[in-house]
């Protein structure tokens, strides 16, 4: 690599600008298991009291485990839908000669410009018409639809790299194009499916506005809405408790990220968030 000898100024500069983030995330952890004297940020005692929410359900709030289960169902189902839709549509756009292919591909790009929030009232109305307002299935579909354009692009990119020879060999053996796709092509894009699945799961896990507006009911509440509700409730300001719930909520994200950071970085690089 270029310039190993004098890399310390860069490391120093990077360390300084990274300090706020490191600080915030360190304290996200520290504050959940310690108490600090008022006005100070140096902990003076160890405690697990901030984690009470795990075994004590707050009056009027659903149980944390119920909410976690909802979050998990929401994230994994929307991930599944994104995978199915993107792996089929991506293949079509990459390989099959259907009318309007170019148009659809351009359309998918344009769809990125339509974020849910600007259309949310109309989306609500559509959900209501199909009877899915205030249900997990409804938000799952909406979330999947919103993540879909990027998913299709990513999968198309992966399909583009699969050698045509594989398909030709399959066809020559007399298999239908569907069989070829399922048996021969799909295994080739497994890394893509894996990366996209991970990505879609995390997007679903993090989503806040959609469930907040489209599924406000207590029995379909997800972690983000639960946490935002705790913070908005001015009767129990307890930063350490917020952080504990926050850490509980973010832990799966961090674990997945640390294990699969290469995949995620690549795919998030083209992610949807500002």
């Amino acid at each position: 690599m270029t310039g190993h000898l004098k890399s310390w100024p860069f490391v120093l500069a990077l360390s300084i600008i990274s300090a706020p983030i490191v600080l915030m995330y360190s304290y996200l952890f520290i504050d959940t298991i310690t108490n600090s004297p008022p006005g100070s940020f140096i902990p003076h005692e160890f405690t697990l009291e901030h984690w009470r929410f795990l075994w004590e359900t707050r009056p009027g709030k659903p149980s944390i485990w119920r909410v976690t289960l909802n979050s998990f169902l929401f994230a994994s189902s929307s991930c599944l839908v994104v995978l199915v839709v993107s792996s089929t549509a991506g293949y079509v756009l990459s390989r099959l000669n259907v009318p309007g292919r170019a148009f659809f591909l351009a359309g998918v790009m344009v769809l990125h410009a339509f974020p849910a929030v600007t259309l949310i009232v109309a989306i609500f109305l559509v959900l209501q018409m199909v009877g899915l307002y205030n249900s997990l299935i409804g938000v799952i579909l909406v979330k999947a639809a919103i993540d879909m354009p990027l998913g299709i692009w990513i999968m198309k990119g992966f399909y583009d790299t699969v050698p045509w020879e594989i398909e030709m060999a399959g066809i020559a053996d007399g298999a239908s194009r569907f069989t070829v796709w399922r048996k021969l092509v799909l295994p080739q894009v497994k890394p893509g499916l894996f990366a996209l699945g991970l990505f879609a799961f995390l997007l679903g896990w993090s989503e806040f506005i959609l469930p907040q507006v489209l599924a406000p009911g207590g029995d379909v509440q997800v972690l983000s809405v639960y946490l935002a509700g705790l913070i908005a409730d001015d009767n129990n300001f307890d930063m350490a408790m917020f952080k504990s719930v926050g850490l509980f909520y973010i832990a799966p994200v961090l674990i997945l990220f640390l294990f699969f950071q290469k995949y995620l970085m690549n795919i998030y690089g083209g992610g949807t968030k500002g």
Partner: protein
Amino acid sequence: MSASRDIVEAAAVPAGAAAASAHPPRWRAGWLNSSRGLGLILLMPALVLVVLFFLMPVVLTGVFAFTNMSTATGISGGTYQVTPGALRELADRHGMDELAEKLGQPSFVVDEQGLKALEEMGIEPAIIADLREGHLGETHASRREFERMLRDLPERPDTRTVKRISGEFSRSLANSRFSSRESLLAAAEGVDPELTEEEKTALVQATYTGWVWTADNFRRMASSRDTVRILLNTIFFVATTLIIFNTAFAMLLAITTHYIPERPAGIFRIIWFLPRISPAVIYVLLWKWFAWDTGFLSAFLDNFGIRPRNWMLDTAANAWFFVIVINGFVGASMGMVIFSSAIKAIPESLFHAASVDGAYRWQQVRHIILPQLKWPILFVTCYQTLSLLTSIEQTLLATDGGPGGATEIWSLAIYHTALNNYAGNLQYGYGAAMALVLVVIGIVLSLIYLRVFNYRALVAKPRIEL
């Protein structure tokens, strides 16, 4: 464009796979038929989602934008209610004081016609008999009074029966609700048989509770001073975040991590990825912990005699600083990854030719790296412009547009208008009109971008090159 896909593949594509698909196959034409059928089937799930959650909402938004829809009007249509407000409108706007008086003056008359109706409704005969014997011909000017009389009947009808009876004897329309125009007019003609067409139209218009078509939303938007302010806020927000963080800062991260050993570089990349992978609710919570009155910054600066304050909302400038930093830190990682992999792709020989002293490094950056990164930079700029235009979660959770609306941006204003009203009357119509503006901007921008990135070439040749 190609840059982003390139990095996706750099991670996941087996080496050599790319080489094989270099030639677009000429056999394709022969498979056209089966390919088309399969293609449509496989495309179906995507099409359903697109139609349900993109096309229909966009169309509906376009429709809503030309209505005065709100909570009060409802979304699905209205009824006709003769409220005092409607009567006032009849009098004030249409000058039909007399008609308003006639329709609105409550009067309850116990007459044979009403008694007959009661018989048909199956009201207990004893009640009807009581009414006929004791009260026939009576007129009451207030509903409350009339219903008191009914309740005092020997039979003591229950509340719902009382309501049904008083409905039949009511000879005015005050506060009655009609599900259709026809039933309203029929009832009105019952009160005043000589209604003119003009009066009918006015009555229907004044009493309708549902939404109506109007272009007022756009007139209001064009003449409202807030529109200009929010627009300028949005431009400021997008431009600043984009220039400072999504490109310049991302480039800084990419270049500095390029020049340090792989291990620390990896750590810094992970650190700068945390904002992006963190759910917005937690990420913003951490910033609040950092910047609020009782937060870290206040406590830290207190040691230097600086008064604790809510740094995030202290002044408009502070709020902007935090809104931009919060959004910018999330956005920086995308540029960082794309630029890093683009820098990696620059042939080593270009660097090797150079020495490694600090002064020369700057020249490397200027003359080797930056020119090579022209397309990735353009891509990030375009992509993030759209993302920023429509981003809302972080700003909503951090400042909610405050203080004093200083950081209110267009997408947030849509949310506030259409979904957030302290007095329970959400302005769907006006919100949709604002959303439509964003939709149009989005479409125009993405079409321009597709042109810039030579979209046709991309489709025609589904191969990736840097």
